[in-house]
């Protein structure tokens, strides 16, 4: 297991390197000029110096190497400095955003909590709804509940967030007037009142994202429980007189959860992708909104960094899913 983990980790590093190189080369083809906004009155030699300062004059491989060093060596040092008050990164150049003229990671760190709050809550809510639906759908197969569950899945699959988002805004904000349609990022939770305001503004984005999660996970859960219900150990558990609650809650659930847990781990990065759209609809000022803003402004270092962060999340989720599978199910042996 340990050697397998180490081997997988070793394989993840070249994967990430290649992905970051692909993104970098793609961005390098960009026709946009970051100096386009600079006034014409600025003399050409000053412009050349500014270009130099942005690191644009260098060869492609040197710029990629610089980005790589900044991303994987300097930025972790900044993090360590921040956590422990050391000064490892002093005087070292960080990845600078062309848009903000400041370090990209500073903005990412500002934006990430907003995304994590909304996406994390939505994923949790989605899973918590999906698991009981999946279990009961499988247990009462072909019942009215099962058909309703199938319908929710189909709706979640057929109605993408950019349709459900405006729809729930129309129903709950415009018609009923219950909930705000815009997520106020500057809102601070200080007392009970402001906490309820925070809760209310989170309901709609969480609803939209959770529907997607519920649709997927409940389907997997249903299939896994169905598979598990037909196994010999379930018949044994029933034959020895265990109550149905114990059969379902212990014997079936524990076995059915094994594949579902890996699906949950694998789905995490996809939710971040979906959050890009949901953030746009509800004006959540998160990392997805930052990416869209950077793409529109032609802020290539920010685009590269955030896309790379997404890639790291995907690779880590794959790794996590594989390791969890082996850890939860001792029948699976990695050699």
């Amino acid at each position, binding site marked *: 297991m340990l050697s397998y983990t180490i081997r997988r980790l070793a394989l993840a590093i070249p994967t990430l390197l290649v992905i970051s190189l692909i993104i970098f080369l*793609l961005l390098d083809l960009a026709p946009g000029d970051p100096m386009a906004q600079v006034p014409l009155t600025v003399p050409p030699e000053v412009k050349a110096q500014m270009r130099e300062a942005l690191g644009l004059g260098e060869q492609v491989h040197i710029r990629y190497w610089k980005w790589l060093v900044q991303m994987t060596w300097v930025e972790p040092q900044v993090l360590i400095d921040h956590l422990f008050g050391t000064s490892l990164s002093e005087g070292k150049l960080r990845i600078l955003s062309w848009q903000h003229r400041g370090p990209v990671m500073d903005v990412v760190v500002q934006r990430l909590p907003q995304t994590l709050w909304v996406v994390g809550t939505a994923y949790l809510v989605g899973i918590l709804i999906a698991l009981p639906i999946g279990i009961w759908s499988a247990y009462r197969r072909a019942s009215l509940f099962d058909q309703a569950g199938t319908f929710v899945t189909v709706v979640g*699959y057929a109605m993408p967030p950019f349709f459900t988002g405006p729809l729930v805004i129309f129903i709950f904000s415009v018609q009923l007037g219950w909930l705000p349609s815009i997520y106020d990022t500057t809102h601070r939770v200080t007392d009970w009142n402001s906490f309820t305001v925070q809760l209310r503004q989170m309901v709609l984005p969480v609803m939209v994202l959770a529907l997607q999660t519920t649709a997927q996970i409940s389907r997997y859960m249903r299939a896994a429980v169905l598979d598990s219900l037909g196994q010999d150990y379930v018949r044994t558990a029933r034959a020895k007189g265990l109550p149905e609650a114990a059969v379902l809650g212990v014997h079936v659930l524990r076995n059915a959860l094994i594949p579902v847990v890996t699906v949950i781990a694998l789905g995490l990065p996809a939710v971040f992708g979906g959050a890009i759209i949901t953030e746009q609809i509800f004006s959540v000022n998160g990392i997805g909104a930052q990416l869209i803003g950077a793409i529109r402004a032609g802020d290539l270092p920010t685009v590269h960094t955030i896309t790379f962060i997404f890639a790291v999340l995907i690779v880590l989720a794959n790794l996590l899913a594989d390791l969890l599978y082996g850890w939860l199910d001792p029948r699976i042996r990695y050699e």
Partner: protein
Amino acid sequence: MSERASLLRRLARHPGAATGGVLFAAILAAVWLGPLLWPLAPDVIDVRARNLGPGLAHPLGTDQLGRDTLARVLAGGRLSLSVGLAAMAIALGLGTLIGVCAGFFRRLDGPLMRLTDLFLALPLLPLLLVMLLLFRDSLAGIFGPEGGIFVLVVGAIGLTSWMPTARIVRGDTLALKEREFVLAARAAGTGPIGLMTRHILPNVLSPILVSAALGLATAIVTESALSFLGLGFPPDFPSWGRLLSDATIYLADYPERVIAPGLAISLTVLSVTYLGDGLRDALDPRLGR
């Protein structure tokens, strides 16, 4: 021929597949034949008929420039479905080629599967957005504004969604390669190209068809998402996603403008998904005839 007839019969008997198939055919017919019955052009601006609600002259109302919403939804459907079908065809062709090669030639298997894994690890939505941003102008220069963005969207979606097909085809090819009829054909002196096209491909057709249905749904949703984020088709030739995105500003007053394209996307995805599920059941030989 009887094989095909029996497949059609099984499809027709499958309630999900029948409903999905009929619905999808209806959508295709409405979108391509609809303009014959509904002659209003989608781009005619009628300033006196701005912001009308649903009525007799305009069943779905008009937009802020007086353009007929029904005509625009039909035109948007032509675009969305064309993009979906073309992107699906590219993804399918690429996926089948890579899958068959990986399954057939042992030496190519490792590198091609690493490539598939690599593509699966790419953050696709951000990459698609970046690709659309970067190549929009250069392709518009070659194919014209409309053709350029079409080629770009179709190419970008097709190039980033072949991986599931490749995996399925590879698995099936690996299994088929060792079967007796392939060995017999090989013993009879059939070359690798003949083996692949005459013996392997016809037998992996059913999983390819199923992934075609699912790929079409994904391609339509992806295109709509890109257009919704403002990086797909421009408002002068809008797809369903763009229509939906343009209408969200007027959501409070004219919800039908959001619901019409949204419902069109959902119904298409739904029908294609059911059709794919039905195909999977009907093509599964284990279920008997």
